[in-house]
């Protein structure tokens, strides 16, 4: 049985196609999220890569903030559950999952079967989210990919403001004072690491700790977060697909449980 998970976020859309709840046939990503043609396009990409048609898919689960717009979905599941399930699939030893998405940061405690025991999300403020990082990268005049490399191994210049607007002026005045961009980037990472670290500490950190979401590709930030938490942080190479994989897995589990026929 083939199942498909689609994770429609604010900035990206991701799809995973799986067979039998164990084998990943394809994953695909587009940098376009809610309200764009991203979801449709990434769906076509993934089906092409998996070598199948929509009719071959037994069940589709949608997750992410755009999950309710996905008409083809059989299930709409919160991204917390999907990320939790996806993380368990990628590394079953994961007990604490930290996901920093575009709009919010989440910390999830998992049991040995990948079920959520507890979770926390940041409040409405942009501090400690992917959006914060994006805004700061813009100020530094680079893309989000370049940003991570920029910060790598640099001494962090203090960026103390937690408010995105204030942090922006702080970054600008650091630039004006001649602080190297790398140090500023590292400072921004540290600020987010502290913010997200605080959220995790609030819930309590049980190893193993895994990080998912696009921000997990920012190696310097992951490093800093690890230091804040005093724990090693796993980052799977499919970290961005955690939600989509989880959705595909949950679609499979739910379909099997409801005894739906296989096409």
């Amino acid at each position: 049985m083939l199942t498909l998970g689609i994770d429609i976020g604010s900035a990206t859309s991701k799809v995973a196609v799986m067979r039998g709840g164990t084998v990943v046939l394809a994953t695909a990503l587009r940098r376009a999220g809610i309200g764009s043609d991203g979801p449709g396009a990434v769906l076509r990409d993934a089906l092409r890569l998996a070598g199948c048609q929509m009719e071959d898919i037994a069940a589709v689960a949608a997750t992410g903030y755009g999950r309710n717009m996905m008409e083809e979905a059989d299930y709409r599941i919160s991204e917390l559950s999907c990320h939790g399930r996806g993380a368990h699939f990628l590394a079953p030893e994961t007990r604490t999952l930290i996901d920093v998405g575009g709009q919010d940061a989440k910390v999830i405690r998992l049991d040995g079967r990948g079920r959520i025991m507890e979770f926390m999300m940041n409040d409405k403020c942009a501090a400690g989210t992917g959006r914060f990082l994006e805004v700061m990268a813009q100020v530094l005049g680079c893309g989000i990919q370049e940003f991570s490399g920029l910060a790598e191994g640099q001494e962090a210049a203090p960026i103390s403001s937690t408010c995105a607007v204030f942090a922006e002026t702080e970054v600008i005045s650091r630039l004006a004072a001649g602080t190297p961009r790398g140090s500023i980037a590292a400072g921004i990472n540290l600020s987010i690491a502290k913010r997200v670290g605080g959220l995790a500490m609030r819930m309590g950190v049980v190893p193993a700790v895994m990080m998912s979401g696009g921000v997990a590709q920012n190696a310097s930030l992951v490093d800093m977060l690890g230091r804040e938490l005093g724990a090693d942080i796993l980052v799977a190479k499919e970290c961005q697909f955690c939600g989509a994989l989880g959705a595909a897995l949950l679609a499979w589990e739910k379909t099997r449980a409801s005894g739906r026929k296989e096409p």
Partner: protein
Amino acid sequence: MNATSEQKAPRPAPEIPLSKQMANQQSADLIRAAKQAKARGEKIAWASAVFPQEIPEALGMVVLYPESFSAGVAARKKAGPFLEEAEGTLGYSQDICSYIRINFAFGALHDKEGFEEFEFPMPDCLLLCNNSCGQVMKWFENLSEQLDIPIFFFDAVYNYDEDGIPDYRMRYLTDQLKQLMIDLEAFTGKKLDQERFLDVQKRSQINRELFQQVVEKSLYKPSPATGFDLYNYISVMITCRGKSSTTQIMTQLRDEMEARHQAGTSSFRGEERHRTYWSGIACWPYLSHNMRTMKRSGMNIVASGYVRSWMLEYEPGDLASMARAYAVSVAANISVPEYAQRSADMIREYGCDNMICHNNRSCKISAYNLDCGRHLILEQTGVPCVSFDGDQSDYRVYSEAQFETRIQGLEEILEGKEESGHVE
């Protein structure tokens, strides 16, 4: 200090005025007294900033003031780990008062490795007065629950109008002072000596009078001090306003200011082109940035309503007048028209030509007073005014650039480049 050995006694840096050295000594003595009291098995207290200290003082109870402690931590730029602990492991929102966040975290970290430098003995009871805000009540409720220690409470009742305190409210206030005496006697196992109580009241009035004289030295033009200086002495009035050591400090400080005036000098290092009324608590983590920026524009703080919160004026021996003083002295416990009137009076009295408002994220009550009262103050005085975002001890909600721009804008208005008005 006993310097018998060949070790040289540490010589104080010459630029620290004697009054400040005395104040530092006083605060070190207070911590030492607290430790000694604990060692003797006596009960010590933590109190909110404007609690009727006369009663514990007369009982010989050592009282510490955690708000002062938090301000000190922030001024020394050491608030970071505390704020992170409070918002992280302890789960408090960043929206609550940062003094209190630091204190909650201190409770969790004080006996942990790496925090030895923060000496502040833990309390056996809590002395609560809500004249400074409503948050202190919730703060002490949590401490009381976690430390399993009692609260002794003086509910100051907010003065929502300008009609004065009606008799029935006076009865409630005075009854509470009487009850505090009974309860604290029972708790400490000591008897309150009425004569000693009267002495403490008298001492407190002498100190208030002296502090007032100090503050009024800024009536001189130019002022012999910067208002930021005075902020450094507020902790004396918070923590020790019933003690004779305070009499010495305030006398010394007053004389130093007078001497500076006579010599034509000032602790304000620039030219006093503008006299500023500062509204709200200091922005402790950025005190020096505030000062530098204002100096560039020739602005000196000569008056602040906040400083007056500890000028509790009453008749020694008259319990009702003492209760009244605790209900009306703090700007946070009076109505906005009253608050605005007091501010406007000071602006006029001290010849201020501008007002700077610290929109303090932590001190919500002062932000309410300011936002609402600013309209009335401006109506009455017509002085141009700027406000800036900051916090009394959370260094993460301040923008140097914002402060600089606003001060510059204010200066431009003052220099007549623009029409007078409020700068947003």
